[in-house]
Every structure is written in structure tokens, then in C-alpha cells.
């Protein structure tokens, strides 16, 4: 068993360390314990109350497990379901992995730093749980694994740590939904994620957030992609939450490694988002693309992107597009950093309103003004993700569609 003594010491020193970005949160205002919930069988999972099932569906989690290769479900601090239905794909609660598997030491806090800020420190000091999803060498997942992090108790701070490993030549698809129960309005979610994409492996990771108005969200993630690997990261957040700040980082450490980060964020009134993506291109032939689509209908959104080209023969592009439809603020901060000759890096940033000409064009085909606006917004949000299985694309489209009525 891994006693993590040194990590705990480092964490203790960082418990009050403010994060460089996002409003500082007093974590003392949240409770860190909850009642524990019983493990549910496949059958029992299907009997969850309908209102919960609907909340989960909004976050891309389907309790019938139809079209899913496995499920991890954590409610508050308890893992209530954890199972893989596919050979070669493992799903393990992280606390169990820390107890039973020595190999976890090669991954746990190896990309993210435990003392980065008070949130990473809290996740180590009081780790509730989280998942380890691992595709063994050469394993190809047909259906995505779904993972759900659910906050049931009002006022809870949920601390999770996730590790995803795509071993050499494997292919893994994960969809993670984060949601609160219909009754829980306030809470904090601290989520550490570490992604390992090994040689020629492919990982698609789609995260859908479906929080409540008074939630504080602080994900911390770092990915590492080896030679020939592909990392597709999609993020969708269309529901309000008080403050969300994250700046996931990807390191392309092997030749020809590729990362594509897409995010879709809708900022509702009273919400504040500071979201970005950062990619280090460290080997020749690596490529990165960051595409962000943000809509503000009264919220504040800071949309960041940072590409760092350290060697020649890399190619990277950043696209931040924002649409303000009902007031609010969008602050796009695209950054490019080329360190040597021979890098090819570009960015495109635009913040605007819906063009009247487009609305009129659609109205002249018979749509009402509201329908025209909705159609244009839907188009704006529909980002093609090359390499994403159609089923996951459909999940994203569904999440967008189900949230759309709140946007208009």
C-alpha cells in the first residue's frame, strides 16, 4: 500500500496557497464529509429517481448503460457503481488502486503537482475517491466508458482524483459527466485528472458539466501524449455555476503526437468562467489545435488559450470565438509562444454578436426571429471534432440541444 506520506506533507504546506487565476475560494465554507451510499447493481442503477436520471442525462450519463462500455459512478464521497464490460479496459476506484496496485505510483501526481494550489492540496489531504480507467496495450474500446461525479449533499466539497491511461496502441473513449442533484444548489468540486496517452494510443475524453447556480468548480488536469499518440479533449458547459476556473495542460512529448482541445461554454447571469487550454509542443511533428466557442448571455467568461512551440517542425492553431447575446462579458486571451525557427503557429480570435444579416436570411426562409437566432447559435456551437466517434458526437449534440432552451 502506498502511504503517500511525502505527498501529504507537500500538500499540507500548500493548503492556503491561492491559485494564480480565478477568484480565491474559502474552502472552509464547505463540508467535506457526507453520508455514505450503498453500491448499486446494474439493475438498481436503473431504478434511480427520474429527476436524477434526467440530470444525469444532461451530463451525458445514461443509467441504462446502453451503448456504454462501462460505468463509474461516484455520489458525494461514495463509489456506487464501478464496472467495465469490455475486455482490456479496466475501471477501478482510485482509493482501491492506491491500496492494491503498485503501478499506480508511476502515475499518481506524476503530471499534476500536489502543491500547485490549495485545491490540489485539498484533493490530496482529503481525497474522497475518483477513478482510474486504463486501456491495456492494444485494447480498443468500442463503446465509451462513462464516469459520473455527482454531488448529492448541499454544501459538500467533493475531492476527486482521476487517472486515465491509454497504453501503447490502445484506443479509449471516456465520457465524464459532472452534476449536482436537483436539490443541491451549493457545493464545491475539486477534480484532479492525469492523462497518459502512450505510444500510438488514442484517447478521446469528453467532459460535460451540469452544475448548479452556487457551485464552485476547480478542475486541475494535465495530459501527456507520447509518440504517435492522439488526445481529443472535449468540454461542454452550458449550465450556470458560480465560478469555474481551469487551465488544463497537455504535453506532447513524443514525435507526431497530436492534441485537439474543444470547448463549448455558455455563461449565464451570475456565472463566472475562467477556462483555457494550454499545449506544450516538445517534439518535431507534434500538432495541437485548440478551439473554443463561448456564448455569454449575461455571464462573465475569460477564454484562454496558450500554445508553446519548443522545437521546429511543429504546427499549432488556436481559435477562440465568442458570441455575446444577452449582455455579459467575454474576454479572449490567446497566447502563442514560439521558441525556435521553424514553428508554425497561428490564432484566430473574434468576439461579436449575431449578424443581423444572418438572422434576416433565415427569416426569409420562414423562421421566426427566435428560431433564426437559435439556429445560428446551434451552428456556432457545432464544432466538428475529427476522430470523435459519431456516438460521442451525438452525446455532445444532445447535451447542447437539451441546454439550448436555457440559452435563448
Amino acid at each position, binding site marked *: 500500500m502506498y502511504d503517500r506520506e511525502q505527498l501529504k506533507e507537500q500538500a499540507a504546506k500548500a493548503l492556503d496557497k491561492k491559485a494564480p487565476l480565478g477568484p480565491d475560494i474559502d474552502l472552509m465554507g464547505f463540508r467535506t464529509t457526507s453520508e455514505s451510499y450503498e453500491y448499486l447493481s446494474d439493475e438498481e442503477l436503473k431504478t434511480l429517481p427520474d429527476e436524477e436520471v434526467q440530470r444525469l442525462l444532461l451530463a451525458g450519463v445514461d443509467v441504462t448503460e446502453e451503448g456504454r462500455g462501462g460505468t463509474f459512478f461516484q455520489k458525494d464521497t461514495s463509489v456506487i457503481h464501478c464496472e467495465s464490460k469490455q475486455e482490456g479496459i479496466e475501471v477501478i476506484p482510485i482509493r482501491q488502486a492506491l491500496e492494491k496496485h503498485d503501478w499506480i505510483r508511476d502515475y499518481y501526481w506524476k503530471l499534476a503537482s500536489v502543491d500547485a494550489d490549495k485545491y490540489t492540496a485539498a484533493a490530496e489531504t482529503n481525497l474522497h475517491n475518483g477513478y482510474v480507467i486504463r486501456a491495456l496495450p492494444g485494447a480498443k474500446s468500442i463503446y465509451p466508458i462513462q464516469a459520473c461525479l455527482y454531488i448529492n449533499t448541499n454544501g459538500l466539497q467533493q475531492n476527486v482524483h482521476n487517472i486515465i491511461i491509454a497504453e501503447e496502441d490502445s484506443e479509449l473513449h471516456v465520457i465524464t459527466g459532472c452534476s449536482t442533484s436537483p436539490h443541491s444548489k451549493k457545493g464545491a468540486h475539486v477534480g484532479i485528472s492525469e492523462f497518459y496517452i502512450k505510444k500510438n494510443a488514442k484517447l478521446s475524453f469528453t467532459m460535460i458539466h451540469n452544475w448548479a447556480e452556487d457551485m464552485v468548480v476547480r478542475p486541475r488536469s494535465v495530459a501527456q501524449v507520447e509518440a504517435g499518440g492522439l488526445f481529443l479533449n472535449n468540454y461542454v458547459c452550458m449550465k450556470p455555476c458560480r465560478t469555474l476556473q481551469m487551465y488544463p495542460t497537455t504535453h506532447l512529448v513524443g514525435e507526431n503526437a497530436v492534441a485537439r482541445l474543444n470547448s463549448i461554454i455558455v455563461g449565464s447571469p451570475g456565472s463566472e468562467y475562467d477556462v483555457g487550454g494550454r499545449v506544450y509542443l516538445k517534439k518535431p511533428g507534434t500538432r495541437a489545435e485548440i478551439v473554443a466557442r463561448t456564448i455569454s448571455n449575461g455571464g462573465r467568461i475569460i477564454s484562454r488559450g496558450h500554445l508553446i512551440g519548443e522545437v521546429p517542425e511543429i504546427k499549432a492553431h488556436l481559435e477562440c470565438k465568442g458570441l455575446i447575446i444577452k449582455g455579459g462579458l467575454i474576454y479572449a486571451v490567446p497566447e502563442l509562444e514560439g521558441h525556435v525557427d521553424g514553428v508554425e503557429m497561428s490564432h484566430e480570435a473574434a468576439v461579436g454578436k449575431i*449578424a443581423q*444579416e*444572418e438572422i*434576416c*436570411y*433565415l*427569416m*426569409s*426562409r*420562414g*423562421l*421566426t*426571429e427566435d428560431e*433564426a437566432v437559435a*439556429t*445560428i447559435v*446551434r*451552428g*456556432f*456551437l*457545432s*464544432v466538428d471534432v475529427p476522430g470523435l466517434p459519431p456516438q460521442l458526437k451525438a452525446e455532445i449534440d444532445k447535451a447542447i440541444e437539451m441546454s439550448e432552451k436555457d440559452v435563448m
Partner: protein
Amino acid sequence: MLLIEDLQVELAGRTILKHIDLEIKPGETHVLFGPNGSGKTSLLMTIVGYPQYKVTGGKIVFKGVDITYAPIDERARLGIGMSYQRPPTIHGLKTRQMVQICARSDVDVEGLARKVNFENFLDRDVNAGFSGGEIKRSELLQLMSQGADLMLFDEPESGVDIENIALVGETIARLLEKECSATATKSRLQVRRDRTKMGLIITHTGHILDYVAVDKGQLLFNGVMSCSTNPREIFRCISEVGYEECVRCTIENS
């Protein structure tokens, strides 16, 4: 029927159309000539209902309804459709979806697209990177799906290559119910009489006249319109003596 009476229109604070009279009866198609910048597109946009074209006088009546100040979508639903000269791109909206939107119900998108040789473009965003000729075909496809009663065509043949010009011409003729071959139950004359679709086609080249039987020609010059019953005659006159002379003689003859 479309009836425009003494219409005056302002754009960005400038009067661009004045004393416009126009009457298109059911089954009729008119062509509209006029030099660049004379206000042809503006007239069509005003009929469609673009709010930046401010009507400062006169009225527009369609099917007996005064639509002078009606919103665009109301006019569309009443049966007015337009093939644009320069439509905007709508990112993320596939042409296929646009054709469905136009139909307002289920429609055989592929089948319609085949008629204008446009199947390969259905999964592209509306107008995104379409060439000049492709835009025309896309616009016609949308009109076919929309099924309007009054169709306004803004330079449908400009930028279209020699092979596609026949396709475009024939498609417009079909949209305007111009093919008047006798059917089992109706004589040619009856088919012609039963025709209800109305058209207004802007053209510089007059090529469209080779494909579509046109009832009247209109000439817009200096914001004023003059009308003739013989479109070919107007076209010949413009080619020979220019727009200005031609306006003078049509006015004198009317």
C-alpha cells in the same frame, strides 16, 4: 398578386428608390434591368422585408395583404421567396439542414439537390466557401424546397458557367411553372391560365430570357422604374443606346 404603389425607400439616410409602381399578376414573370447601383437588389430586399430598407412612402400589397411593414418571416410564410445575389455564410448550419428549414416539413433533400446538381454540397455549411455559381444553385435549391408563390431572383445567371446556365434557366422555368406542355386533362392554354407562380428576375445579360418565358420587362434607372411589355425589346434597346436613352424612349412610349 404583387402590387407596389408609389414606393419610396431610404437606405442609410439616402433615398434610393422613388415612385416605384409594379404589378405582377398571378402567373406572370417580369425581368428587371438597370445599371449597377441603380437599386435593383434594394427593391427586392424591400419586398422581402429587410428592415434597413426603410419605406418612407407608398405601399406593398401581396395576395391582398398590406405587407409594407410586415416582418420578413411573415412575408416568407405568405409566399415570398428570394434567390440572393450575395447571401451570408452560416457557420455550423449544413446546407441539408437549410433545405429542411425552407420546407418546414419533411422533404426529399437528396432528390431536390439532384435536380440542381448539388448533392455533393449538402454536408457543407450554408454558403461557406461556395463559388459564385455554386451559390446560385444553392439558392435555387432552397427556393425549390420553400415553394414560394412569388419568387425574386437576383442575377441568377451571373457567374454561372455555360453548362450550368441551362440547368439554372430550366430550374427557374420549372419553379415558375413555365413548362406549359398539355396534360391529359388540360390543354396548353389551360395550363398557362392556371399558372399562379409569380417571378421577378434581375438580369444584366438577358441570358435568362432564352430559358424563361417572360411577360414584362422593367427598367430601373436613377431610382425610378419604367415598364415595357416587351422584355427583349428593352434588352435590345439597352444594348444599342444604353440605359438612359432607353428609359427615355420607354417613358415616351408608355
